[in-house]
């Protein structure tokens, strides 16, 4: 095996890990604060991808503007998911909440199929391929990685430097105590869901420049995202980033050495073994 190819795959793994980390952080943030897993999270990403696709191809928007459009649209969807689906069942048993967001998943999949059929749609961007030390790196992936890092940095600063961000972390530790501090927990939930939506919208924009979109896009990335969240420790932000990089390296490097299918098998085996050894995730539950 050519070491250059493996190095290239390793770098591609890191680049993929950035976007996966963005997804895992969004999902983890909502879980940590609202205590609900949005099974349909990657379906929101899929809608963001379609948003960029149609804004660019049908309406002729420039890509950056379409990306902002996707962020805005999915932020609103995130707020709606919370207000219409989560808020009414906040005190129901967890399994009902899981079923409700699972129902949303099938609804969104079917809705997308109904509107846009099962065609795989791609932006067909002519983005350059960079050659570095004999490795070929896609500019789209580098861009997606850089944007993911920036978004995560922004999230970090928000969660540590602002009153609302600190309150979001506080609510994830003790929601009743935070109500005693004067924070309306309903508002904190809504803000968290909006941020989760915004991150899904951004991820959608970053994925559509690399992959084609279809109504079942979530079937590929959804399970991977949940696996990463569980592996890193549900609600644990740093764990999510570590697990993202680990999984994307296994998939990317493993894919080069064997085949993509085999790499996924290996990734899931690692996941299963890790969960047996450390059921609370690599870095434990929550930071």
């Amino acid at each position, binding site marked *: 095996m050519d070491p250059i190819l493996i190095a290239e795959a390793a770098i591609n793994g890191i680049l993929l890990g950035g976007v996966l980390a963005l997804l895992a952080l969004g999902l983890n943030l909502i879980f940590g604060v609202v205590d609900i897993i949005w099974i349909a999270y990657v379906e929101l990403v899929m809608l963001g991808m379609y948003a960029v696709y149609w804004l660019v191809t049908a309406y002729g928007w420039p890509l950056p503007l379409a990306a902002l459009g996707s962020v805005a649209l999915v932020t609103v969807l995130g707020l709606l998911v919370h207000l219409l689906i989560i808020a009414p069942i906040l005190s129901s048993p967890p399994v009902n909440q899981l079923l409700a967001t699972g129902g949303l998943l099938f609804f969104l999949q079917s809705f997308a199929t109904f509107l846009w059929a099962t065609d795989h749609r791609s932006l067909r961007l002519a983005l350059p391929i960079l050659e570095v030390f004999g490795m070929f790196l896609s500019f789209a992936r580098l861009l997606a990685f850089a944007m993911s890092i920036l978004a995560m940095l922004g999230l970090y600063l928000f969660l540590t430097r602002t009153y609302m961000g600190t*309150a979001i972390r506080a609510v994830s530790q003790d929601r009743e105590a935070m109500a005693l501090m004067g924070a309306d927990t309903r508002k904190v939930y809504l803000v968290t869901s909006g941020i989760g939506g915004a991150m899904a919208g951004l991820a959608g924009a970053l994925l559509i420049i690399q992959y084609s979109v279809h109504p079942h896009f979530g079937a590929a990335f959804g399970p991977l995202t949940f696996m990463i969240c569980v592996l890193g420790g549900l609600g644990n932000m740093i764990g999510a980033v570590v697990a993202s990089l680990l999984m994307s390296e296994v998939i990317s490097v493993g894919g080069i050495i064997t085949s993509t299918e085999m790499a996924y098998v290996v990734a899931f085996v690692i996941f299963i073994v890790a969960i047996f050894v450390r059921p609370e995730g690599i870095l434990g539950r929550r930071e």
Partner: protein
Amino acid sequence: MLEVNAVTAGYGEFTALWDVTLTVNAGEAVAVVGPNGAGKTTLMRVISGLVPIRTGDLRLDGRSFAGRRAHEIVAHGIAHVPEGRRIFPRLTVEENLKMGGFLPASRRHYAESVGSIFELFPVLAERRRQRAGTLSGGEQQMLAIGRALMSKPKLILLDEPSLGLAPVMVLRLFELIRRVRQEGYTILIVEQNVRQVLSLVDRAYLLEVGRIKVEGRAADLAEQDFVRKAYVGI
């Protein structure tokens, strides 16, 4: 300042408080004592809005706040230091205090408030960048009290502040609560350490199975067999 008027409250089918009436005047320190399960913590949670009332009324400075939610009641000027401290363990000491001053009106005085709390509890200043979960029990209680003071409340509710603390720490804590009093705060305190709390407060109520049984001046009550009653509940 605080009037609890004929309040009945509970959880689901269970009634924890029956027709409870209690007042706290401005500048006063008042204790609620009684055996375990008497409803003391429920009373505190009712006042801070965590448990809704069924009948009766709650007033602060003559204005009713019955039916308000917890976060609105803080803005009215009542800060609740809950049982078990309930600090945010994975936030730093400073972040905990920042959350105590979460209300927009408190944010403007942040630096000044933090300064006065560090003066009152110097150990918190030393540990400001430490995660609150790494503090000792006594330090955590100081943090919980300091956090409540960040909103500059008119009334501060202290629920079992000495719970789980070593005897030496309990004495120090009471000394600190005495100093909080001297700062001019009005206090309503629930305590198991009946003797010590009676030396701290002006008046006290004895709560038994959800009803106020005895009420009086702390000095008078300390002389009666009230202390014994509070402990054993007969």
